C-alpha cells in the first residue's frame, strides 16, 4: 500500500514537472487561505488577483509577450499548511515570487521556513501583525497594508478630534484586537486622553454584559470596540444599547460591517464612527478598476482587501518586468524601484504603459488602487485610514487620514 501511495505521489510529481518546465509562462505563486478560517473573504480576493493576471496578459504579456500565470496554493490560513503550500510554489512550481500569506501567522511561518531561505520575494496583501515588521527577512518580505500599529495611532487622533477625551476600550483577544488596542492606548494617553477602562474579551461568547458593566462603571463618554462584528463586536454594541451601558461607539474596520447595522439599526449608530484602512481618494484609474471588477465578476469590488490583492499582484508583475527576467534575486531587487518614488506614475490597468516606460529605461512608480505603496526599510507601507459613519444601511467615508 505504501508503495502504491508512493507511486501515485511520484506519478503526480512527474505529471507536475512538465508544466513547470514550460519556458514561456512567467509564474507567480498566490499563497491563499482558500479553505480554513478566512474562507469567507476569499472569492473576491482571488478574483482581484485574477483580474491583475488578466490585465497583464491583455496589456501584451510579460517579459516580451510571455504569459503571466498565477499559481494558486491553499495555505488554509494556518502555519503548517502554509509552509507546505509555499514550498510547493517555490520549489515545485518554481515561481518567480509569491503573493500572499493572508493571515499574519501563516505569512510569517511561510516566509521564515520557505521564501526567505530560498531567497524569493513575498508580498502579502493582508497581513497586518506588527510582528511582520521586525522579522529578519533580508529584504524579501513586504506587505501593502499598514501594520495594526498604524491604525491604532490614527484612531487615537480621530477620537480626540471628535472631542472625546475619556473612553473605555473593549477589544477581542487575538492578534488583531490586541495589536490595535495596545497602540491605541499608548497613542491616546500620550496625546492627553484618558482610558477609563481597558478590557479584553474572548470571541464568540453569547453575553458580554459582565465585561460591559465593568466598562460602563468607569465613567467613559464612549466605548471603543476593537473586534469583528460577526464574532463579538455586534453583540457588544447591541447589549450595551439594550442595557443602557453606552450609547456612543467608536469602531475599527472589524466592526465596520453591514451585520452591525442589521443587528442594531442605523438610528442607534447615529453618533458612532469607525476607522478602517482605506484607499486614497478615488482617481479615474482606481474607479475604472472597480468598475471593471464588478463587470467581470458581478460584484465585490468594495470587499476587504480586493484593492490590496490587485496591487500586490501588479507590483510583483512590474518587478519581474523591471528585472527583465524571472531571476529571483533580480525580481526582489526590482520591487522597490517600481513601487517607490521617484519615477513616472503608473496606475491600475496601465500595464502596457508601464512596460513601455520600462523598455525605454525610465523609472516608474506604481500608485495602486489601495495607496502609493512606498515601502520603508522594513518592507512596510504607511497607509490611509478612513473615518466612516453610518449612512442608511451602509457606511459612508467622511474623511481620510494619512
Amino acid at each position, binding site marked *: *500500500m*505504501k508503495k502504491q*501511495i*508512493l507511486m501515485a*505521489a511520484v506519478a*503526480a*510529481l512527474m*505529471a*507536475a*514537472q512538465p*508544466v*513547470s518546465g514550460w519556458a514561456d509562462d512567467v509564474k507567480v505563486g498566490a499563497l*491563499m487561505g*482558500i*479553505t480554513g478560517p478566512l474562507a469567507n473573504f*476569499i*472569492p473576491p480576493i*482571488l478574483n482581484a488577483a*485574477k483580474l491583475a493576471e488578466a490585465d497583464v496578459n491583455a496589456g501584451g504579456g510579460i517579459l516580451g509577450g510571455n504569459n503571466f*500565470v*498565477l*499559481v*494558486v*496554493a*491553499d495555505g488554509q490560513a*494556518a*502555519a*503548517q*499548511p502554509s*509552509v*507546505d*503550500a509555499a*514550498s*510547493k510554489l*517555490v*520549489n*515545485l512550481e*518554481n515561481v518567480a515570487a509569491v503573493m500572499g500569506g493572508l*493571515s*499574519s*501567522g*501563516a505569512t*510569517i*511561518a511561510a516566509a*521564515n*521556513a520557505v521564501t526567505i*531561505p*530560498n531567497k524569493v520575494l513575498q508580498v502579502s496583501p493582508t497581513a497586518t501583525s*506588527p*510582528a511582520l515588521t*521586525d*522579522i529578519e527577512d533580508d529584504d524579501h518580505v513586504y506587505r501593502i497594508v499598514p501594520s495594526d500599529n498604524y491604525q491604532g495611532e490614527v484612531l487615537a487622533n480621530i477620537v480626540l478630534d471628535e472631542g472625546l477625551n475619556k473612553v473605555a476600550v473593549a477589544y477581542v*483577544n*487575538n*492578534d488583531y*484586537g*490586541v*495589536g490595535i488596542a495596545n497602540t491605541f492606548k499608548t497613542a491616546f494617553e500620550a496625546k492627553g486622553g484618558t482610558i477609563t477602562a481597558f478590557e*479584553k474579551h*474572548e470571541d464568540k461568547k453569547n453575553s458580554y454584559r459582565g465585561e460591559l458593566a465593568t466598562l460602563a462603571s468607569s465613567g467613559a463618554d464612549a466605548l471603543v470596540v476593537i473586534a469583528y462584528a460577526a464574532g463579538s463586536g455586534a453583540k457588544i454594541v447591541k447589549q450595551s444599547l439594550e442595557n443602557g451601558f453606552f450609547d456612543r461607539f467608536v469602531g475599527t474596520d472589524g466592526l465596520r460591517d453591514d451585520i452591525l447595522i442589521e443587528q442594531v439599526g442605523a438610528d442607534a449608530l447615529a453618533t458612532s464612527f469607525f476607522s478602517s484602512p482605506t484607499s486614497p481618494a478615488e482617481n479615474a484609474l482606481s474607479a475604472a478598476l472597480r468598475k471593471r471588477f464588478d463587470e467581470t465578476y458581478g460584484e465585490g469590488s468594495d470587499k476587504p482587501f480586493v484593492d490590496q490583492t490587485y496591487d500586490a499582484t501588479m507590483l510583483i508583475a512590474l518587478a519581474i518586468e523591471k528585472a527583465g527576467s524571472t531571476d529571483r534575486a533580480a525580481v526582489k531587487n526590482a520591487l522597490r524601484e517600481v513601487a517607490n518614488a521617484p519615477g513616472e506614475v503608473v496606475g491600475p490597468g496601465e500595464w502596457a504603459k508601464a512596460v513601455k516606460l520600462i523598455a525605454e529605461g525610465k523609472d516608474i512608480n506604481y500608485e495602486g488602487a489601495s495607496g502609493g505603496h512606498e515601502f520603508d526599510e522594513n518592507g512596510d507601507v504607511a497607509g490611509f485610514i478612513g473615518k466612516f459613519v453610518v449612512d442608511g444601511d451602509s457606511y459612508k467615508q467622511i474623511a481620510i487620514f494619512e
Partner: protein
Amino acid sequence: MELPGFVFYFITFFTMGGIYAILCLALNMQWGFGGLFNAGIAGFYAIGAYTGAILTAAGSDDHVGGFGLPILIGLVCAGIASGIVGWMIARICVRLKADYLAMASIGIAEIIRLAIVNEEWLTNGSLGISRIPRPLESVFSGRQSEVFFVVFVWIVVAVTFLVARRLQVSPWGRVMRAIRDNDAAAASVGKDVQRFRTETFVVGAIFMGVAGALSAHYFKFFSPDATEPLLITFLAWVMLIAGGSGNNIGAVAGALVIWAIWSLTEVVTQQLPPDWATRSSYIRMLLVGLLLQFVLQRFRSGLFPEKSPKLRVSDDR
C-alpha cells in the same frame, strides 16, 4: 552545486513530516503502548513550543525572554516543561477510562490555549513570539539552513524512535501492554497500574513538547494560531491509526504517508483549470478525506500492524 527545486520541496516535506513523526511516536507511547486516549496533543505541543521559544528567542520588551539559551537546552527544557504538565494532568486524569480521559484532555488543551493567549507577560498573547533562532544559523544560511534543519529534525526523530523502541521491548513495555489489554489482570499480578499509566503519559508528553519546540524553531515565529487542534491533535491521531498503533515504524510511516496525502493532493488538484482555483482546494480536501477513508478501511490495524516483541527468555512460562 545547484540542486533542483523539487529536492527542496522534499526537504520542507520531510521537515514537517519529521515533526509529525515525533508527535506520532509520542502518541504511540501513550495510546499504542498504554491505551491512554489523549485528545489534547495540541496543548503539550504548545507548551513545548512556547518553552523552547521563550528560552531561546531574542529579547523583547513585550514578554519575558531574551535568555538566548542554546537550542538543545531549549529542546530539553521544552520536554521537561511539557512532561511536568503531563505529570500533573496524569495525576488527576489517568484513572479515568479511555473516553473520559479524552474529554478531560480536550478540556486541558483548551485551558492551556487560553492561558497562552491571556498571559501576555509570558507569551506575548495572541501576537506571538518572533525572532526564534534555528540551530547553527550563523554557520548555515539560506537553503543550507533548510538542509541542516531537516537533518536536525530527523536526528531528533531517530532519538525518539530509539527511546520508543527501547521502552517497547523492555519489561516496562510488556507491563504497559498488559495494562492496556486488561488492567484488572495486570493489577492482580501486583502491577501498579496508576504508576505505569502516569509514566507512559509523561514520556509521551515530553516528546510532544519536543515536537512543538522544533516547529517553533522551524517557523522562527510562534503564535497561538499554530496550535490549531485540527492540524495537530486530529492529524497526529489519523497518522498513528493509519500507520498502525502500537508499532513505532508504523507511527513514522503513518506520519509520512498521511502528510504526503495532505501535501501531494494539492499537486494533483493544481492541474485542474485555473478557474477552478477555489473549487480545487475543496476538491483536495475531499480527496484527502477519501484517501484517509481508503487507508483506514483497507488497513484496519494500520499499514504496519502491531507485533509484540519476542521475549528473550525462552523458558519464561
